[in-house]
């Protein structure tokens, strides 16, 4: 079970089998500094991306695999599916 990141965070409700390596990476982390509004930090439905001081933190364990991040930031975000058997399992 994931830890809640903020009050009311729905992520702890989900069954997520977290792999030990990340399936999300950046082509060039420094480029995020120049990104104006950092849409990944608000477009991601499960708040995987977090701006911390001067770097982008990627909480890949929170990913629910919609793939939206790489669509809005194909320049810098490399997103793949987690390995088989890992990631989110919905029950509803």
């Amino acid at each position, binding site marked *: 079970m994931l830890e809640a990141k903020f009050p009311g965070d729905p992520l702890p409700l989900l069954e997520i089998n977290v792999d030990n390596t990340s399936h999300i990476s950046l082509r060039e982390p420094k480029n995020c500094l120049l990104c104006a509004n950092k849409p990944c930090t608000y477009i991601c439905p499960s708040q995987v991306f977090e701006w911390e001081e001067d770097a982008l933190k990627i909480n890949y364990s929170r990913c*629910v695999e919609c793939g*939206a991040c790489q669509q*809005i930031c194909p320049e810098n975000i490399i997103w793949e599916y987690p*390995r088989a058997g890992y990631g989110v*399992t919905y*029950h509803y």
Partner: protein
Amino acid sequence: MDTYDAIVVGAGPAGSTAALTLARNGLSVALLERGQFPGCKNVFGGTIYAQPVAEILPAFWETAPLERPVVTEELWFLHTDSAVRIGFGSLRFARQPYNKFTVLRSQFDRWLAGEASKAGAVVHLKAHARDFVFDKGLFTRGPVQGVRLDNGEILLSNVVIIAEGVLPFLTAKAGLLPKVPPAYAYTLYVKEVLSLPEEKINDRFQLENNEGAIIGMVGFPTSTAIGKAGLWTNKDTISLIVGGYLNQLASQGLSPYMLLKRLKEHPFVKRIIQGAELVEYQAHMIPKGGYTFLPKLYGDNVLVVGDAALMISGRRGTDLAMLSGKYAAETVVQAKAKGDFSAKMLANYALKINEAFFMEDIKARRSDLQYYQNWSDADYLISSILNELANEFFTVDFLNEKEKRARLVSIIRSKQFPLKTLSDLWAALRHWEAL
């Protein structure tokens, strides 16, 4: 090494239907699912349609895991504290042959893959096809020979049916994606499943027994972006969904999670879900690229079905996915009989798709994508003006009817410049769709 007549990548509605059809016709087929069970990563807008599904699985309602047959449909033009509502209810839809059912994908998809398995398909769980195995060509790579799983395992087949869903990784690797769809060719939705006792659901939606309802919402739920919200009844849960065009959410600074949170606070939504307990949160995208971004549907030894083939028309998708899976499978059955799996033979699949009733709609809707980008204020305008007009119309005051009519006209006139209203109306009549 295993060799199959066909490998189907993805055990969603399209893939499982393809595998089922192939197995029924006596072909050997492997059905691959990257999750722990089919449906465990799938999300949709709530309902499957009785007639198209029965075409593949006659009288499926006797055995499939269904939630409720839908008898009431409403569309709400939601504004900050009001709503213009239209709808239709028919108790006929509660009886055979039914019209549509709410289902939970984790159960329905699992059941459908189970039907394919019963017919003889070999279902591989936790099997993620990350790449193809290509035949060696003289100078370039040859045609597809099979797939490589992410654990290194290789599966070989005469044909690979790509049913990978909204993200076209394999479709691109097969060289079937001439135009990579941009962000505006996707919508992003988030959803909450809220648990509530059956009696309370029935009371709040005015239903009896297992009857179901679905409410679509436009306007308020997506703030300033083009999109939709939906609220529908399962047996003992309610699903609430909201989302819109990905590029608009991004450029307008809208967080889908925050939109959902905001929608739950709307007084008309709040009173329906009051006291319900959150049991799951989900997110998914819909490929809205349509005819403009249609991938090539076939190649040597390979076919594309379902979301990966952009088989989406308005709110229809699951049924079109299943039909495309069926057509692909039928094409492969004939190809096996002929002993020819080349692109020339598999082109029959594209023919079947082009002849299908839904392709006419997909073609006709091709300019809608551009409409929603150029007229991104359409949902806001339509919803807010309808609510302002209705508010004036229903308010009882001291105006005579002539004055009242003048007031209504002035609401429209003062909304924006008349030329824009005319051009908006003309475009909306041709492109705007409520559902």
